């Protein structure tokens, strides 16, 4: 059966502008462009194009654009083109559909349905250019007992804390799923910004131990690269129980991505698949989780905060309550729009809940139970701007993880084909010729720029609200109003409707 699937995008070349320099040909790892020596002109194979815009950006004469194909099956609101094509693909191969990056479906984005308050007249705004505006914060347990020694001096009973100069951290992305240069950029940016990046579950490359004080190391079900030095090198340890892009399933890094270097970092043989089982097979309860939390604390002599990361799912609030009682210092919640290097399409697009609702419910539940100070809350899963950060903190988060936004700063164009390992921007690939396209000297500066700009915006919005410390914004839901939301949504978010006064 000839089931040709029309490409989704077309490469349009302006022949008046094209000088046949063949830059596009050299830049495209998907082999879209080629030179036709007979006509002396460039050709394009649309079917290979993933729309990563690498050629568009690098074409010296701006001769290229990529457009959505207007070829369509008979218009059908129920069976749209993509749905039909997915059926064809699966009928052809019998395979599970595999995608990457975050859920692209048009679900409601609650960040865009919340508005932030500002002071007028009675409670004047604060000018961030003139007055100190504190965005520094600490993550960890606050619930310290007041104890005094024999001389009556206060004993330090405070659990270990992570100090952040900005309320933004880089979320977990493993070496393997992203490149060495991407990791280096993240590590150096975290150091300069006074924040943290996260190794993900792929271990820590030996070159990056020197960024340890700005590193969060992850311990996932596959325990790749986990050993004493790895745990000791870090500022904090994150136990990954789940990920927003694929709640309830594990990870699978294909053998093709296990280069010599990745194999050394993960401590598995080259070319063999790296499989993380769906559950930690030694954790079937909160008590088991507590055991892992404490074994990590014992291994690091109680000097490092332990983070437990879960995907935002229906029962997230109850689970978070368990985690807060497990001895963990920080809970990280990852919403269903969070990115990934590879996830089954159906899971990415249909499993989990929005981070906004999960966060509001978890913060409320922990407050109701009087254990909010037992843990800090980190959220991620599509934090796209400083406004999202402000809203997340007002809803109850302590700080935010950013992943996709950080990759965008490094050049990612959200083509959602990371799982193919041929990222033309040198991010989601291990091919040396592609990796070297990302220059960490430039990459880290772009990350620093992004977060610094966001931090300025955060300070301005805080000043506008008459708040001069980020900690005073945390859980301050009176600063938020909903727009276009139902009563149920307002209730879940714990906010009033726009126009309602205090």
């Amino acid at each position: 059966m000839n089931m040709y699937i029309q490409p989704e995008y077309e490469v349009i070349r302006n022949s008046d502008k094209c000088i046949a320099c063949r830059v596009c040909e050299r830049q495209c790892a998907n082999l879209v462009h080629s030179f036709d020596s007979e006509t002396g002109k460039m050709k394009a194979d649309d079917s290979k194009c993933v729309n990563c815009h690498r050629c568009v950006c690098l074409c010296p004469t701006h001769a290229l654009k990529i457009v959505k194909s207007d070829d369509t099956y008979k218009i059908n609101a129920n069976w749209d083109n993509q749905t039909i094509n997915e059926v064809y693909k699966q009928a052809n191969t019998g395979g599970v559909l595999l995608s990457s990056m975050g859920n692209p479906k048009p679900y409601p984005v609650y960040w865009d349905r919340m508005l932030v308050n500002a002071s007028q007249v009675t409670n004047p705004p604060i000018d961030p250019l003139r007055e100190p505006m504190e965005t520094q914060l600490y993550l960890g347990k606050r619930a310290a007992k007041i104890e005094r020694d024999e001389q009556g001096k206060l004993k330090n009973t405070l659990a270990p804390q992570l100090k952040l100069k900005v309320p933004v951290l880089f979320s977990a992305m493993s070496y393997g799923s992203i490149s060495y240069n991407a990791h280096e950029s993240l590590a150096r940016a975290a150091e300069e910004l006074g924040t943290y990046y996260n190794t993900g579950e792929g271990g820590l490359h030996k070159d990056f131990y020197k960024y340890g004080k700005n590193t969060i190391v992850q311990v996932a079900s596959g325990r790749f690269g986990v050993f004493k030095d790895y745990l000791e090198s870090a500022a904090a340890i994150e136990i990954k129980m789940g990920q927003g892009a694929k709640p309830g399933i594990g990870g699978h890094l294909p053998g093709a991505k296990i280069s010599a270097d990745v194999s050394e970092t993960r401590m598995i043989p080259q070319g063999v698949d790296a499989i993380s089982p769906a559950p930690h097979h030694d954790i079937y309860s909160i008590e088991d989780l507590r055991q892992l939390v404490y074994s990590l604390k014992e291994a690091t002599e109680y000097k490092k905060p332990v983070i437990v990361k879960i995907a935002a799912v229906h029962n997230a609030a109850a689970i978070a309550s368990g985690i807060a009682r497990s001895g963990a210092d920080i809970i990280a919640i990852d919403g269903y729009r969070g990115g990934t290097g590879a996830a089954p399409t159906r899971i990415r697009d249909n499993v989990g809940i929005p981070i906004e609702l999960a966060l509001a419910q978890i913060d409320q539940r922990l407050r109701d139970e009087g254990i909010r100070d037992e843990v800090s809350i980190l959220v991620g899963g599509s934090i796209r701007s400083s406004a999202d950060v402000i809203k997340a903190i007002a809803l109850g988060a302590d700080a935010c993880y950013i992943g996709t936004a950080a990759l965008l700063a490094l050049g990612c164009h959200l083509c959602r084909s990371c799982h193919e390992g041929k990222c033309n921007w040198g991010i989601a690939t291990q091919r040396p010729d592609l990796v070297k396209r990302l220059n960490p000297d430039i990459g880290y500066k772009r990350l620093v720029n992004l977060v610094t700009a966001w931090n300025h915006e955060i300070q301005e919005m805080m000043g506008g609200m008459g708040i001069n410390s980020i900690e005073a914004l945390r859980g301050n839901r009176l600063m938020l109003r909903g727009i276009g939301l139902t009563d149920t949504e307002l209730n879940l978010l714990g906010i009033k409707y726009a126009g309602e006064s205090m």
Partner: protein
Amino acid sequence: MKIDASGMHFAELNERVRACEEKDIYIANCVGQRYIGTGLADKEIAVGGTPGNALGAYLNGARIRVYGNVQEATGDTMNGGQIVVGGSAGDATGYAMRGGKIFIRGDAGYRCGIHMKAYKENKPAIVIGGRTGSFLGEYQAGGTIVVLGNHTDGKPIIGNFCGTGMHGGEIYLRCGQIPTKLPAQVRAEKIERLPEDAAELVREWCREFGQEEGAFVNASYFRLTPNSDNPYRQMYTVN
């Protein structure tokens, strides 16, 4: 140095073990204290009584000997060193082990050796004298597991779902008949002679527990290995 663990909280016990300057430590009257020896590199610890869960987690070269039984998660994510158990071990023994050796004289519980992995000279091994429960070697990615079947209760040498998701390493079972209910990813073959590295592990076990080598080394085994290095490769379609 001797530490009397009776009535002691695990945090205090482990702190004393870490702080101890002597290499040799004997923990007496152990009553379920967890995380003993976690991450240690250069100690020789002997334990009288019964240690609690996660004995020798992240163990980094130290040697631990327990005269009786151990509980769950012994040698969790162990990196190097040795744990010798004179009795039986609980569930999830050697989870995600990446180096070192665990010798158990008696039986081991469920989920033993899950996600063991190997890299270059780091090749972890677990030798179990008796039998073991279900899910042995699930997701095994490297290393060696040997089950000697030296138990007398007549139960099968392994439980169900042995080697589910296995994609590296090998499991040796000293038994006459191929175990039933092996998953599709696992290939089983009968061997009349152990390869030398496995034979040496068995000899070490015999020496540890004073057993006659002959019956264990010169026996026929079933050897389980993964069918393919990439068990999931065919499962996906790029979307």
